[in-house]
């Protein structure tokens, strides 16, 4: 039972990574930009959520508000920061992204203080169903469910709708897709909206899990997200999902068996270095 609990805890952690990494990989697939500032949208979702919840909104509505604000901010950032840089070499957008992350983090620090905010009430954390001896709280269940729904929804959208097919065509060849009437610009805006929404939701749920929202909370998660994107093969969505779950489970078991040598985050980066030494192209083929 102990191992099952560890496995489930790892899968939940992997689901959270998947929500972050999926957004990063979608953006990389379309624009070849490593969107480091994705971490700030994770934090933004958390802040909007905690402020809304502490002002009296139910947690579900607070989560929805966090997602909405992040989903709106993503396309705005694309339009103001990345769009003017699309014809520049990729490192220009990378530097802009790092600058944006620092600016947004310090913005949060100035607005909400350096020590972070906690939820006045956190019922999802202290309650949850007993699944045959395995206890999961509602936040963990929400994380797992959100990831499954997001992945299934995106999968259905990508293969089952004309807009999704147009999106994938834009990833393959934006010029040809445009000549058939697909708007690459709309696809990019949608990608930023979806990626930021996922990051915002993950940020809110991780905030609930830790009962803390603080300015730099997205950094480690985002770095791990980038590591997962590389592990899964740059721009490869299924590879990213597998790498997320693998990293979550490896971390979960590693915290028990390697805790004398490495802490949780070090385990993740150790795995990244080890895998990249073995397969520099990542576990799956990149785009």
């Amino acid at each position, binding site marked *: 039972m102990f191992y099952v609990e560890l496995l489930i805890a790892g899968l939940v952690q992997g689901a959270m990574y998947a929500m972050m990494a999926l957004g990063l990989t979608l953006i990389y697939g379309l624009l070849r930009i490593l969107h480091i500032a994705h971490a700030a949208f994770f934090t933004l979702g958390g802040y909007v959520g905690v402020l809304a919840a502490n002002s009296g909104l139910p947690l579900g509505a607070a989560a929805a508000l966090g997602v909405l604000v992040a989903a709106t901010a993503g396309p705005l950032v694309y339009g103001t920061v990345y769009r003017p840089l699309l014809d520049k070499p990729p490192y220009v957008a990378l530097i802009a992204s790092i600058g944006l992350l620092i600016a947004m983090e310090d913005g949060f620090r100035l607005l909400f203080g350096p020590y972070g905010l906690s939820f006045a009430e956190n019922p999802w954390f202290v309650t949850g169903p007993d699944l045959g001896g395995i206890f999961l709280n509602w936040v963990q269940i929400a994380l797992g469910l959100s990831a499954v729904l997001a992945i299934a929804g995106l999968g259905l959208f990508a*293969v089952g709708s*004309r807009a999704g*097919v*147009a999106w*994938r*065509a834009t*990833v*393959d*060849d934006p*010029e*040809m*897709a*445009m*000549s*058939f*009437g*697909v708007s690459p610009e709309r696809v990019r805006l949608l990608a930023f909206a979806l990626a930021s929404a996922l990051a915002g939701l993950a940020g809110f749920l991780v905030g609930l899990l830790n009962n803390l929202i603080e300015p730099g909370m997205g950094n480690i998660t985002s770095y791990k997200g980038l590591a997962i994107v590389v592990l899964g093969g740059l721009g490869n969505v299924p590879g990213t999902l597998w790498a997320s779950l693998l990293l979550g489970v490896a971390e979960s078991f590693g915290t028990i068996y390697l805790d004398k040598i490495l802490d949780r985050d070090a385990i993740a980066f150790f795995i990244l270095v080890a895998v990249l030494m073995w397969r520099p192209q990542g576990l799956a083929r990149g785009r």
Partner: protein
Amino acid sequence: MLELARVSVARGELRVVRDLELTVSAGEMVALLGPNGAGKTSTIMAIAGHVPVVEGTIRFEGRSIDTLSPPERTRLGLGLVPEGRRIFPDLTVRENLVVGGYLLSRGEAQKREREVTALFPRLEERRQQRAGTLSGGEQQMLSIARALMVRPRLLLVDELSLGLMPAVVDLCFEVLVRLCREQGLACLVVEQNTQKILTVADRVTVLSAGRTVWQGTAEEARADEALIDRMLGLEAG
């Protein structure tokens, strides 16, 4: 249907096509020939709207299309089969056709999909296969079928035969000729395979270093193939 009047095309600072005069009528197949670097692909891409025209005017069905974007030209009735096919390799055959018919309503696109796959039954068999895994010939069929999705009145075809088996080339040209004769489709075809194109085209324009060096009917070209070969730099010795 298509008129190019003193058209000059530039790639960066370099003028790759100068003062080109060209017409294509409904139901007609016009071949654009020339050695490498003559400006054939630039001409096709300028008509499709992917490369800017720096002088002159392109008119389609009497209307200047110089300022229109590529999708606006597609909407107007221009189809493009680009050099190298440029199908979407990660999409299935069906999904490639969905993108080809993106400007149509869903119902109309489905109907059109059945019509274009009837022209190339092989595509119907490969419907759910990833386009990147198709053979070169099947990819060319898909590229033509995708361009036909919007019922173009003018089809721009760049290097159809490149790297393909003769039987596949024959099949593709057979379909294009049939569409020209039966449905009035106009075709402007860039082709290296002179022998083949001279048997199916109605008229021929030969470019060299961006300038027109010969224009005439395919019959005239066939009567003096040596002249055409000389202009293309293909003569023996």
